[in-house]
């Protein structure tokens, strides 16, 4: 954004020229062109399914375009991943692409092990990998297997791998999704430093503030089509969102819900588990309790241990069922007592993607749909259709495999399957991560409606505006403990972050 940055922008390094990509009959990209210059950070934005990831994969040679060409320095890029790597294009994936049982050094040098006389040269490997880590300013034991490292550290190793190849183009797909705000700041700073060194960077993110902080230009994709390319200086977040969504978005921020909390329904005392160090927590009927904190602070671990999804080492959890206090000893008992859980990894843990939406919705409700253990397809169909309508599934075809739907719609299915049980408590872990803007608003509406009907709601979110917007009260978790509790009127981004990061971090934000 500042003048000295734009002055370092050099010639076009990589260019996508009228790219069309079809999968079977479906058109993923329809004549998209972008060109990125050396020293520039270039943003790609769009809702899920807009074609960002497909374009990124085409730029990196993983997919071949159906029509159109990718040009590097004006020459067409052909020959898949290998050619793209040779041309200096490095990709940092959204899904972590590390080999868990290999060491840090091996992962950084993956595919480019230095050899001497046919054998791997350990010394060279250590040297190169160490240099790459140094370049991004991260210190870690090179011989540690990656499986033992935290998720955010893995993200940095991923970047170190890209940097180790001395790339000319660096493509990052949602690199901050798993990072804490401090780590995010660090990453953004690092990217700016790399760009100043002449690297062309393609940056894909849902988080508009990041884009406005570091990018020079932005391209908006929608439904596989190129909608607009603009200089960041000439646009605003609101304009971008309108272009991404392509319709007037009902602004849901700032809607204050009339909350009317009742009695405590879910109560946890002294919960301990790996990464959780003695937490007490109450959730009342009709109340939305938010759990804030940095990624890795132990929020997911806390709720998973509370519900018995993962084993807990200590503590007690009770739920009030029709006036009776019941212990939650295991996850199955939690579900039986009317606790619903929407997990963080929706594709892996939330849905059976190869089963129909109808089957997925029926799964927790099978007892009420069946008679004497015998299922009825017609009854199941009707049951699932009603719930799919309630959550606004689009298209509302419950016979389709749930894997055919976009992330936002899949999340609606996960919520729908619990609605049939009329849960007393619903726990949502990052309910809108990677979900497009439209679906996000609908999911927020559903959560509010549940609370209005008297359901006790517990939400984990790393998306601060979402957390502030939804929660009646926010507990901030730091280092496996509750660092502080903020009522709706005292909570803002600053107060949550300072609690989340602890004293030492307040100055840096």
């Amino acid at each position, binding site marked *: 954004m500042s003048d000295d940055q734009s002055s370092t922008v050099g010639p076009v390094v990589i260019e996508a020229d009228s790219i069309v990509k079809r999968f079977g009959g479906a058109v993923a990209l329809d004549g998209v062109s972008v060109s990125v210059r050396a020293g520039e950070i270039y943003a790609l934005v769009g809702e899920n399914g807009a074609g960002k990831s497909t374009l990124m994969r085409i730029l990196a040679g993983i997919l071949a375009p159906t029509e159109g060409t990718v040009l590097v320095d004006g020459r067409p890029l052909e020959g898949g991943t290998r050619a793209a790597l040779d041309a200096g294009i490095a990709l940092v994936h959204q899904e972590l692409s590390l080999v868990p049982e290999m060491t840090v050094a091996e992962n950084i040098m993956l*595919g480019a092990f230095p050899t001497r006389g046919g054998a791997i040269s350990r010394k060279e490997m250590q040297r190169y990998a160490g240099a790459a880590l140094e370049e991004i300013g991260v210190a870690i034991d090179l011989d540690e297997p990656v499986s033992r490292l935290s998720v955010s550290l893995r993200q940095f190793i991923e970047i170190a791998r890209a940097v180790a190849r001395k790339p000319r183009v660096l493509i990052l797909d949602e690199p901050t999704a798993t990072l804490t705000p401090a780590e995010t700041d660090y990453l953004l700073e690092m990217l700016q430093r790399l760009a100043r060194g002449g690297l062309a960077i393609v940056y894909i993110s849902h988080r508009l503030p990041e884009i406005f902080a570091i990018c020079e230009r932005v391209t908006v994709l929608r439904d596989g089509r190129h909608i607009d390319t603009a200089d960041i200086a000439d646009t605003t977040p609101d304009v971008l969102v309108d272009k991404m969504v392509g319709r007037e978005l009902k602004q849901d921020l700032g809607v204050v819900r009339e909350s009317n909390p009742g009695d405590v329904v879910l109560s946890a005392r002294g919960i301990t588990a790996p990464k959780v160090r003695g937490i007490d927590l109450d959730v009342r009927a009709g109340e939305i309790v938010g759990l804030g904190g940095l990624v890795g602070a132990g929020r997911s671990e806390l709720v998973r241990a509370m519900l018995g999804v993962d084993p807990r080492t200590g503590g007690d959890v009770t739920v009030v069922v029709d006036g009776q206090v019941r212990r939650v000893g295991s996850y*199955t*008992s939690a579900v039986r007592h009317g606790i619903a859980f929407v997990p963080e990894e929706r594709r892996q843990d939330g849905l059976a993607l190869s089963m129909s939406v109808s089957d997925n919705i029926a799964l927790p409700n099978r007892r009420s749909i069946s008679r004497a253990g015998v299922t009825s397809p017609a009854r199941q169909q009707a049951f699932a259709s009603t719930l799919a309508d309630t959550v606004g599934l689009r298209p509302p075809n419950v016979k389709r495999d749930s894997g055919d739907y976009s992330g936002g719609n899949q999340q609606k299915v996960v919520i729908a399957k619990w609605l049939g049980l009329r849960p007393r408590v619903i726990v949502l872990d990052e309910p809108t991560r990677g979900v497009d803007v439209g679906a996000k608003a609908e999911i927020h509406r559903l959560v509010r409606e549940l609370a209005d009907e008297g359901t006790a709601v517990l939400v984990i979110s790393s998306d601060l505006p979402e957390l502030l917007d939804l929660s009646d009260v926010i507990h901030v978790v730091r280092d496996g403990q509750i660092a502080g509790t903020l009522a709706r009127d005292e909570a803002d981004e600053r107060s949550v972050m300072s609690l989340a990061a602890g004293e030492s971090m307040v100055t840096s934000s």
Partner: protein
Amino acid sequence: MSTPHGINFGEAPARTRVDQLRRTLGRRTEGRAVALLAVVLVVALVMEPLVFSAYPVTLSRVALVGLVALGLTVVILMGELDLSVASTVVLAGVMMAQTDNVALGVLLALGTGVAVGLVNAFFVVKVGINSFIATLGMLFVLKGLAIVISRSEPIPLENITFAIQFGLPIVGPLTPRIVIFVLAFVLLHLFLTRMRAGREFYAVGGNRQAARDAGIPVDRRLVTGFVMCSVIAAGAGAIDTLERTAADPTAGSTVLLSSFAAAIIGGVALTGGRGSILGTLIGAFSLGTLEVGLTLTGVQVDIQQIYIGGVLLLAVMTDPASLRAARSSLRTSLHGVRARSTDRGLT
């Protein structure tokens, strides 16, 4: 530890020797295999010390089961399976007996191995079907071919003098089979730990998409792995045939299961990317010593099977991950019962 930028990143690099050693050991996968071997050796020492003086027998027993297991390990490390190894052993043996020239026979046998590996790899890599099924199909096909070619009868080798010679020790107690086994072990160990291609097998098994994205020629590695496995199995078939002085088309029924057992006990994970050739060697040693020990104590073959099955079952069930899983699922079930009974009591 803290970087200059104030972000908290994982553990510090190991500073002391002891620290380093502890970490290195923590990263090994052969732990349980070593423990089992130790138990077997100690029990043998107490119950039947003869096992140690009969080490040539043990060695050849280990080499018998172990050779195929070494090849199988390579495929399992890549996250694939080869159920056709036993049939490959048999077919290669039959092919070898088709000629009276031993050298030509060995070449035929190894050639069969190469062909089998290529066919397996073709279905896995090109057609894109799971290796479990592709090699299950090949299990039937190769067995069938062995029966067709041999007309269901054992084929004696023409050059019987060489075959008899082959079964005798060449250096000390070392028969050619043992020497070949040791050679195969050393070469594979070096290949998988020191060579670029071998090390990349772990990436293929540990995270295939990552390997592809990093530019590793995954398909080529898979072909290499399947061919290596089949060639080793074929080599084992040739050795069997030489030692028996005949090719037996109905032999080898336990080869698949026991070589599997050796790799699994050795800590090779069926999910791929985790384990080592050394582990398989130790696994094969444990099983071999157990079998020989039991035989020497006069235990019937049938009862030996019970022991081996028990050891294998114990090995998978005492895996730390298995124990954790068992604890949490038992808790679930117990709470389920308790919760249900209180529900009933109240309603």
